[in-house]
């Protein structure tokens, strides 16, 4: 029986993280499709998705054999590193310390890069285009795979988390295919901030459980942790914005 107090944040994290990563991958897929048509773009994307699915299917059963406390500790620490890293970066973007992700600029740069590659090499351009799409989906998808495994493995939620990621994939690719331009209006940084908050909360929760902590309120403690990371992230962004403004004056 699924505990929804744990499943909802797990599925939500997988869904939102997937939206962020797939929007980034879609920009490159679209650049490939614009230059060489949808065939190499779809083939490269499908091959990468198949490889990512194979990684999840291979790692899932293996993780069941690891003792629960050790698994929680390792995954918890990795989640802390990954989650706080995302939170740091999105707080800095929110504060204007580093620039926001610009999908239009990335699309233009990737299109120019592909054109340059085609001129430089003698290999079939369809092959280069397919490999480019494959690499984009594989690299962005690795983060999604980690999140699915990290939030799903500790409580047998691999399938629900995978479904959350697949739903995001279907949503972004459908919208992207209809709109047929980079999805620059998706509030990527806000989503990334939200995912960073949830992953950091999961990180503290799993690491604590791995060290033998029994959190008061059990899974509900996740919501308190998330609220604290949200408040701290916003405070950090605000302090950083003030610091940068003072420097500019």
């Amino acid at each position, binding site marked *: 029986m699924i505990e929804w107090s744990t499943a909802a944040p797990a599925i939500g994290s997988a869904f939102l993280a997937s939206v962020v990563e797939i929007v980034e991958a879609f920009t490159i897929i679209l650049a490939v499709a614009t230059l060489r048509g949808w065939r190499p773009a779809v083939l490269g994307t499908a091959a990468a998705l198949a490889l990512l699915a194979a990684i999840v299917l291979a790692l899932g059963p293996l993780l069941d054999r690891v003792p629960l406390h050790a698994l929680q500790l390792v995954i918890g620490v990795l989640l802390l590193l990954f989650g706080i890293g995302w939170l740091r970066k999105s707080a800095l973007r929110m504060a204007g310390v580093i620039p926001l992700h610009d999908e239009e600029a990335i699309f233009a740069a990737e299109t120019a890069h592909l054109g340059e590659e085609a001129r430089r090499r003698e290999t079939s351009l369809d092959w280069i285009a397919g490999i480019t799409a494959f690499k984009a989906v594989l690299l962005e998808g690795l983060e999604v795979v980690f999140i699915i495994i990290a939030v799903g493995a500790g409580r047998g939620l691999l399938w629900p988390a995978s479904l959350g990621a697949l739903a995001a994939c279907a949503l972004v690719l459908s919208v992207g295919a209809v709109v047929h331009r980079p999805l620059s209006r998706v509030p990527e940084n806000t989503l990334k901030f939200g995912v960073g908050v949830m992953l950091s909360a999961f990180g503290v929760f799993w690491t604590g459980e791995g060290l033998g902590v029994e959190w008061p309120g059990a899974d509900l403690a996740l919501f308190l942790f998330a609220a604290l990371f949200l408040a701290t*992230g916003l405070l950090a962004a605000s302090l950083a914005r003030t*610091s940068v403004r003072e*420097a500019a004056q």
Partner: protein
Amino acid sequence: MTILRDVLAELFGMFVGDARLTAAVIVVVGVVAAMIDLGDVPPLIGGGVLLVGCLVVLIGAVLRAAHRQRAVAASQTT
């Protein structure tokens, strides 16, 4: 080979994008583990230290990057 190298670089960047942040998180977890396992501190107190430690690490990492940016901006104006 390029793809494999890019995959390894991506995996490394996922967890060690900021080396100081990575080191700080590992130190916090190590201190909490030592408190609980060696210091006989109640696990829940250790959990509280873990939570607060991670929040402090987050603020420290953001402010450090902002101060670095501020120093770069100051050096460009002089």
